[in-house]
């Protein structure tokens, strides 16, 4: 094994690299939130938060927190000049009608047809919670997934068919993982790039898939 996995921050930076100037983006709670720290200074990207903000800025300085101004993860944030507030119905209208360019979401599994599972592990004792995941998954113009390729148990999160309960059907267009960037095409997964030193054969072996070159 002569390759190195991307760290979470490296992965976040890799995604930020692909977000074009002027894009309207929603970063899902959890890992995708990290992308905000790596947005390029020479590009203006407008972040939306499902709870009713557009133009979300970084975390406030200590002591400057306003708990009326939080993000979808319920952490205090700031609003940039040019930002705005709106109600939940308007916020989800933004998501659900394709006004957002990109949603970056975490995932438990992504299938070769673009199906996404990221809200429920399927365990019977789990308390289900969906939040805005289903809205974002099918609403944004492009849905990108940010995740580690493998679970802690070494199982691939890229799958032929999702076994976990679905969040959305055929909604993911690209998956950014710590080992490779993969596009979802009408013919299934297709490798966009792998970390240095990782061959497609090794990737296919890890994922137990036949990802197209």
């Amino acid at each position, binding site marked *: 094994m002569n390759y190195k996995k991307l760290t979470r921050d490296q992965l976040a930076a890799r995604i930020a690299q692909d977000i074009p100037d002027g894009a309207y983006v929603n970063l899902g709670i959890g890992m995708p939130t990290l992308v905000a720290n790596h947005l390029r200074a020479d590009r203006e990207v407008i972040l939306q938060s499902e709870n009713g903000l557009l133009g979300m800025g970084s975390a406030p300085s200590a002591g400057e927190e306003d708990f009326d101004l*939080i993000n979808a993860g319920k952490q205090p944030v700031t609003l940039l000049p040019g930002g705005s507030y709106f109600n939940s119905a308007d916020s989800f209208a933004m998501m659900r009608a394709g006004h957002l360019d990109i949603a970056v979401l975490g995932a438990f599994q992504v299938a070769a047809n673009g199906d996404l599972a990221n809200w429920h592990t399927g365990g019977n004792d789990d308390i289900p919670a969906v*939040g805005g995941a289903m809205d974002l998954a099918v609403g944004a113009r492009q849905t990108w997934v940010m995740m580690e390729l493998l679970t802690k148990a070494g199982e691939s999160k890229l799958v032929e068919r999702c076994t976990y*309960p679905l969040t959305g059907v055929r909604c993911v267009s690209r998956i950014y993982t710590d080992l490779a960037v993969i596009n979802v095409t009408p013919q299934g997964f297709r490798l966009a790039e792998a970390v240095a030193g990782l061959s497609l054969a090794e990737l296919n072996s890890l994922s137990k898939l036949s990802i197209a070159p």
Partner: protein
Amino acid sequence: MIDKIFSSVAAALADVHDGATIMVGGFGGAGMPVALVDGLIAQGARHLTIIANNAGNGETGIAALLKAGRVKKVICSFPRQTDSQVFDALYRAGRVELELVPQGNLAERIRAAGSGIGGFFTRVGFGTRLADGKEVRKIDGEMYVYETPIHADFALVKAERGDRWGNLTYSKSARNFGPVMAMAAKVAVASVHEVVTLGVLDPESVITPGIFVQRVVRVERDGAAT
């Protein structure tokens, strides 16, 4: 003369009946009308159906209402949180029903109730277990799910400023569900931190026009009722 200002939370909630369906604004703590929920606990109504984005945080607000055993059912999008231990325990014990709704469907279904819409088709949820058993329809080549309006007897909404006609403004992201819930309830009760004279609120910047609000009560910024 129209005067929707109530002198106390207790007065504003006096007629909540057992079995009432109650919308509660807020996303996490932002916009959560803690003083009104505390008032509801004190008021004593039971067998309530609560419609809210979350199912309570920590031991306050909806969590305290749940803990007091007043809630029969919760309709929400995101019950599970790091500090949702009260809901979690009741749910696992089978002592509270849950209807889980994607957040955008929740907001849109509430808006539909407030807007006279009998039902609508949305792509959100199609092919997932949250759409199990629901009517589907193919529209322009895409699959949609039929969703119905959610009405309520009462809406408890946390606003910032209000006047005697019931006009409201909010504070930052505390707005969230307040405006649509006020529209969808028979009686919308708004807590405000400041009651202003009619005409002080800029008519261009009123977020909830008074027609959607039946009762306004001032509470201190720390959440205590005045």
